[in-house]
């Protein structure tokens, strides 16, 4: 078995399973924590607050937007770019179709891939630079944040380095980092991909029940 066959075969299955089970376990753990019962009479809908809390935080308030426009651009650029690459890159779709044996959606053209990758990389670099340049961000960041950023960067970078699809070694390198990333993901702050809606929703629900706009 070659390294490529391993990282795309058993390695990928094991890391994917760890990713799925551990992420579910953490989500279930957070939900099971529950919430202390609020004995005050409700002045609004907690559920509406949950939804509002999630949706409204996609758009920053005016003053914050002015002060953090670079962070805002970087954040949206990176996350949207990453999802677009993950879901619409031709090699990813081909890999998933081969893995599951079903036909998926059409891939984005190569020029769109390049532009999306540019945006995603630009955003990730801005976010990482802000993490160690901003005094507050530097204070609240630890190794977990940096490892998560670097692993994501390396996954993206090795993917792009293998874009020519002419060497198995480059593909194996990319898939190797994907496997590591999948294993690290559920035990790190990368889990914010799944938990952000819970935290935003909890705050929103609390505000909504009190009749306040989250």
């Amino acid at each position, binding site marked *: 078995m070659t390294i490529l066959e391993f990282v795309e075969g058993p390695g990928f299955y094991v890391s994917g399973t760890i990713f799925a089970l551990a992420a579910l376990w953490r989500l279930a753990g957070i939900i099971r924590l529950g919430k202390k019962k609020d004995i005050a009479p409700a002045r609004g809908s907690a559920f509406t607050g949950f939804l509002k809390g999630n949706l409204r935080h996609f758009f920053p308030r005016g003053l914050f937007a002015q002060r953090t426009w670079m962070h805002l651009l970087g954040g949206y650029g990176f996350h949207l770019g990453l999802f677009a690459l993950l879901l619409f890159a031709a090699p990813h779709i081909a890999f998933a179709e081969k893995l599951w044996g079903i036909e998926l959606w059409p891939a984005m053209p190569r020029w769109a891939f390049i532009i999306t990758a*540019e945006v995603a990389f630009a955003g990730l*670099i801005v976010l990482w630079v*802000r993490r160690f*340049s901003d005094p507050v961000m530097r204070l609240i960041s630890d190794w977990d944040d940096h490892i998560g950023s670097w692993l994501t960067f390396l996954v993206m970078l090795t993917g792009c380095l*293998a874009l020519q699809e002419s060497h198995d070694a*480059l593909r194996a390198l990319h898939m190797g980092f994907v496997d590591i990333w999948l294993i690290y993901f559920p035990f790190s702050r990368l889990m914010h991909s799944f938990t952000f809606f819970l935290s935003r929703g909890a705050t929103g629900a609390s505000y909504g029940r009190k009749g306040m706009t989250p």
Partner: protein
Amino acid sequence: MQRFQNLFRATALMAAALLLTGLTWVTWADPTHAQSSVRPPGEALPLGATDGSPSNALGDRSDADVWRQIRGADGEGGALPSTSPGRKVPVYEDILRELQGPVARDNSSSATNTRLIQMLGDNWRQVRLDYILPYAGWVLAGVLGILVLFRLLRGKIKIREGRSGKYIPRFSMAHRIAHWYLASSFIIMGITGLIILLGRPLLAPYIGKEATAIMASASLQGHNLFGPVFILALLIVTFRFMKGNFFQWADFKWIIKGGGLLGGHASSNHYNFGEKTWYWIVVIVGLVMSATGLLLEFPWLTEQLIWHQMSTILHAAGAILLIAIAMGHAYIGSIGMEGSIDSMLRGEVDENWAKEHHDLWYEEVTGKKIDHKTGATLDAKAEAAE
């Protein structure tokens, strides 16, 4: 129709090959040549070319002319004269006619429809092999050596009065993000570019051709991908850092004093002469790198071969220049000088560092006066005297 054209081209190529084979055979079968290669007559005059061209290919006719015409007449890739006066040499024209065929060739940059050997390409290859590749490695190794020597002789440059513990803001968050954004993309571009440029002569002997090919393929993809990111970062830095980077009178005095390296105190504003020069080199050379890089990534932008060749040479030379200076910049901005990294990490610098290295700027932002010979605060001296 296409099949006939292909057939004709194949026939033409075969004819050309036969002609060249015949030419070679004539050269070696020529008794004059055979005799001269065994034992030259004692009083014989040197015949044929003295510039390294094969000799006496056409007997009493000058074969050097044939080779000159094949290589592009004037040796510079210029237009080929149909014949030399008094020395009509049909060989080249015959071969060319056979190669060109009945269909007009497209005028792409690599088309050689007017000559057999593209001398422009040969000259470019020579420049690349003889100058760019060897000097690139030596320049970078030399700069690294100078930095090591500087470190050994001078050591880490300390803040003369030590850290005061008081900090004054120097760079905003936007400045720092712009700087590190450019720095990170520059590092990626630099590493991948050096692998592309020097991988074959420097890496292949040690890690093998296959591994070098893999690294080169990966580097090319990475280089092309991060190129636009670098351009974007360069434009942001250009505008964000422009204020304060125009040369002033204090910079002249700074040069006279060797930036303080020759002893004494060299006053400077927000940026000293070295930093300003570095800024303009980054801007100007960076823009040249961007333009030439775009031309290399999108070669269809021009059909002129000379632009592509100039682009590769300018791109490589500019890259070596930027990387060489960036090494010095990175050293003095981090481990080489106490307190300098704070400006780009924290956005603020120690007051004593500011007084020592950017006293005019310190006076401007704090309103305090400084003794420009020593860098000490005059108010503090007055207080001490009282």
